[in-house]
């Protein structure tokens, strides 16, 4: 297979960068540093100096304790609270500045995982909050919603199982498990980003750790879990962020792991003691044995066991001699007989603590390497793992047999479209899953069966009854070819196939307002339309198109059709006369277009040669350019017009802006938002905007009637 086109993307790093990095490495140089020295380690003077410096920094960071918690009344925040879509007002140029995120739909990526003490629930930290599954994973989860956009979502049950805590950006959110009522919201430094959390086994303390400001800062907090009162705080810049935390069973010691090693603190964080100075090159994980005698610490390709009394190394267990293992999580079984390890390369492993042998050895990949965390069932017989995709899998702790699993998107939201009912949203992931969610309730309605490799486009018919999609088939045999599937049309409520428009190449298509489909017909080399009742019979629409378009847009009245191929002119057709006008691709490379529903305005996204993106709008009636906005990123994704053609929304990496088509100053700018979007579209009634994001979450944006009532 010709893959030369892929090789040409290689680029030599600049000599200046190479020299600067080499000099930095040379500056780091020190005597060869032993990684593991069981049972006793020699400590290099340089490392000890680093340790001392770190401790000084930490000590400086320990400041006067203060309580910044904000306990809430028990019933204030129920599960899934958000303004209903009916409370939203039409988005206009006058109120668009007040737009806010009103809902998040879908579960998103899975991060941390915890098993409830009574064994009935599995909590998974997901992009959207905390998903509470029944332990058999059979039913859809309850979702305890958070507000901070993040992938990292630590979870911890209180020992009595009544509360569950998670990190929510710079806050800890605690809910009552039984009711979903929010128990408390504990604010910390706004610069903190909490990605580790744990109740102490005796239920007295709650600890959270993470990064401060950048990844170069450390933040650790402890609270009296009975009073939700802050009792300890360490905030230190210019050091290493927290990778993992673990309380000893008696609650008297909090182990904190960073890239620089592991320290032990008392619960009020006043007496740090460095106990493992092995720098982490990758991986994370900490756990105390149930008898408190041993602390297990994960390094990239090994874990070490430390005597908690003497703080001496008892044992080092190498996962793979070829150093290909990468531990992402480590936990003791409640009975202390096993240690379970989440390994990014070898999946779930278990190790017998008495026999010092692997029960489930690192012999083959069970899942992809993005395994993120692991937890034991209370009876020590099963383990549950989560992954950076969205897999949650329960396996037998001794045999690795899969007992239950849940999979949503395996990756990000790659595309979406809103049904004309303004409630149903269809979206697809990079993994080929095609899901339908109810925007009003947030519920997953169904998965539309798709047997191919991946989907390239979806669209609802104008009456909302049909869902059309294009994509590629699965290979018939390993290494076999994948084929374009043409345009598949199904009744999405019954899954009954409606039509198949068999087009040789992967088509970009649009629905007309009367339910026909327009796409490029490679056989005739025309733009053609199809009546879905006669899907094998193309009708010529425009014969002046010689290559399949990358994107195709049609105005609501059907009079204006726009198409382009990557990097080429944008061609605008009058569908009645076939007359073509073109916008030359004179500067940069067109990557996406949007046509206003009235057919009068066009927006083009281009990559410029100066490593920026350009959003340019044109008035097609006059051919004049209306505005150009330059974004300091090459990660501009898509643009879309509002139904009345008066607003233009654009989305990309970390940005979501709304403009009027003739003014380069945004009315609303979400440039600081904490996620990256792949798709954006207005609802058909213009009351809300939906974005599809890389964290696997669909976000709904709008202006509530309450907001407009405020002065």
């Amino acid at each position, binding site marked *: *297979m*010709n*893959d030369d*086109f*892929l090789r*040409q*993307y*290689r*680029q*030599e*790093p600049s000599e200046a*960068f*190479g020299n600067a990095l*080499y000099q*930095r*490495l040379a500056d*780091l140089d020190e005597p*060869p540093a*032993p*990684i593991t*020295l*069981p049972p006793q380690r020699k400590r290099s003077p340089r490392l000890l100096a680093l340790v001392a410096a770190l401790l000084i920094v930490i000590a400086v960071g320990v400041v006067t304790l203060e309580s910044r918690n904000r306990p809430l009344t028990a019933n204030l925040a129920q599960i899934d609270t958000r303004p209903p879509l009916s409370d939203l007002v039409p988005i206009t140029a006058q109120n668009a500045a007040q737009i806010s995120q009103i809902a998040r739909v879908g579960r998103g990526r899975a*991060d941390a995982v915890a098993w409830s003490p009574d064994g009935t629930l599995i909590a998974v930290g997901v992009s959207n909050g905390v998903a509470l599954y029944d332990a058999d994973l059979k039913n859809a989860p309850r979702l305890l919603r958070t507000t901070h956009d*993040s*992938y*990292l979502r630590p979870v911890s049950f209180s020992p009595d199982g009544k509360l569950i805590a998670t990190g929510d950006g710079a806050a800890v959110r605690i809910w009552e498990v039984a009711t979903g009522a929010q128990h408390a919201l504990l604010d910390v430094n706004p610069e903190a*980003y909490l*990605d580790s959390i744990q109740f102490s086994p005796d239920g007295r303390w709650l600890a959270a750790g993470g*990064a401060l400001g950048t990844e170069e800062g450390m933040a650790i907090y402890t609270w009296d879990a009975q009073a939700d009162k802050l009792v300890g705080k360490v905030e230190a810049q210019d050091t290493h962020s927290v990778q993992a935390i673990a309380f000893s069973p008696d609650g008297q010691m909090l182990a904190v792991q960073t890239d620089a090693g592991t320290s032990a603190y008392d619960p009020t964080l006043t007496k740090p003691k460095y106990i493992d100075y092995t*720098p982490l090159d*990758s991986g994370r994980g900490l756990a105390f044995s149930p008898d408190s005698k041993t602390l297990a610490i994960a390094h*990239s390709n090994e874990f070490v066991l430390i005597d908690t009394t003497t703080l001496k190394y008892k044992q*080092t267990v*190498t996962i793979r001699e*070829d150093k*290909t293992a*990468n531990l992402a999580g480590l936990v003791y079984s409640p009975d202390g007989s096993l240690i379970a390890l989440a390994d990014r390369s*070898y999946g779930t492993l278990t190790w017998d603590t008495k026999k010092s042998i692997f029960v489930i050895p690192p012999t*083959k990949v069970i899942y992809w390497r*993005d395994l993120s965390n692991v937890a034991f069932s209370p009876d020590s017989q099963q383990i549950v793992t989560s992954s950076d995709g969205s897999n949650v899998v329960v396996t037998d702790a001794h045999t690795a047999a899969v007992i239950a699993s849940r999979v949503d998107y395996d*990756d*990000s939201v790659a595309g979406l479209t809103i049904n004309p009912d303004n409630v149903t949203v269809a979206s697809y*992931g*990079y993994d080929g899953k095609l899901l339908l969610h109810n925007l009003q309730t947030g519920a997953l309605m169904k998965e539309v069966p798709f047997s191919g490799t991946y989907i390239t486009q979806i669209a609802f018919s104008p009456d909302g009854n049909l869902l059309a999609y294009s994509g*590629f088939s699965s*290979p018939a045999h390993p290494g076999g070819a*994948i084929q374009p599937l043409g345009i598949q049309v199904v009744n999405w409520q019954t899954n009954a196939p409606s039509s198949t428009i068999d087009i040789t*190449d*992967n088509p970009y298509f649009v629905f007309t307002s009367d339910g026909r489909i327009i796409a490029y017909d490679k056989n005739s080399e025309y733009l053609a339309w199809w009546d879905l009742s006669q899907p094998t019979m193309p009708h010529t629409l425009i014969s002046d198109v010689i*290559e*399949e378009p990358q994107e195709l847009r049609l105005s609501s009245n059907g009079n204006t059709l726009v198409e382009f191929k*990557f990097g080429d002119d944008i061609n605008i057709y009058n569908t009645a006369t076939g007359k073509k006008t073109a916008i030359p691709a004179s500067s940069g490379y067109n*990557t996406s277009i949007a046509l206003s529903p009235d057919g009068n305005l066009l927006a083009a996204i281009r*990559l410029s040669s100066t490593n920026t993106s350009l959003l340019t709008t044109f008035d097609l009636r006059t051919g004049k350019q209306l505005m150009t906005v330059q974004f300091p990123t*090459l*990660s501009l994704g898509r643009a879309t017009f509002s139904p009345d053609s008066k607003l233009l929304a654009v989305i990309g*990496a970390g940005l979501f802006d709304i403009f009027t088509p003739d003014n380069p100053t945004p009315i609303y700018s979400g440039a600081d938002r904490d*996620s*990256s*979007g792949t798709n954006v579209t207005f609802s058909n009634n213009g009351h809300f905007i939906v974005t599809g994001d890389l964290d696997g979450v669909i976000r709904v944006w709008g202006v509530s009637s309450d907001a407009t009532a405020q002065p």
Partner: protein
Amino acid sequence: MDAQNISTPPKTVDWEVFYWQWMPRVYNFFRYRTGDDALAEDLTATTFTKAWRSRAQYSDDLSAFSTWLFSIAQNVAVDHFRRQRFHLPLDAVPHLIDPSHSLDEIVQKRRDSAHLAALLARLSARDRELIALKYGAELTNRAIAKLLGMSESNVGTSLHRIIQKLRSQWDQEP
């Protein structure tokens, strides 16, 4: 790793040569993975900083070191994406001003590179990692299989499928 390594003097290895041999591969791994030149430099620096301190352990087995190096690189990428959450790169158009090429060639090169960057950006994270290891890091299927714990044939099959997908999209470009 055991205590013997402490007293065993490292063999003479020209780490500078090794660095200049492998740094561009790590850089291109991140470039294919993230599509961002500046970010690729940052993550390359992070990877080498993590690996450098322990390099002496691999003095007698440079092949193991290179495997380990990419193992670190993979995890640096994972950690970056977990924390940063910004990865929708439609990529940098490379600054390719090569006097030996005509203006048309330069324009075409930029155009191709931007097109490919856009296609790579639309791959799933998994597929993109495989492409990055194959074409960015220029690892063999066997090395990728070892790194990812997959079978060599599985790597080949997966790459074949991804390349087909990219090829079909690439061919839409005149």
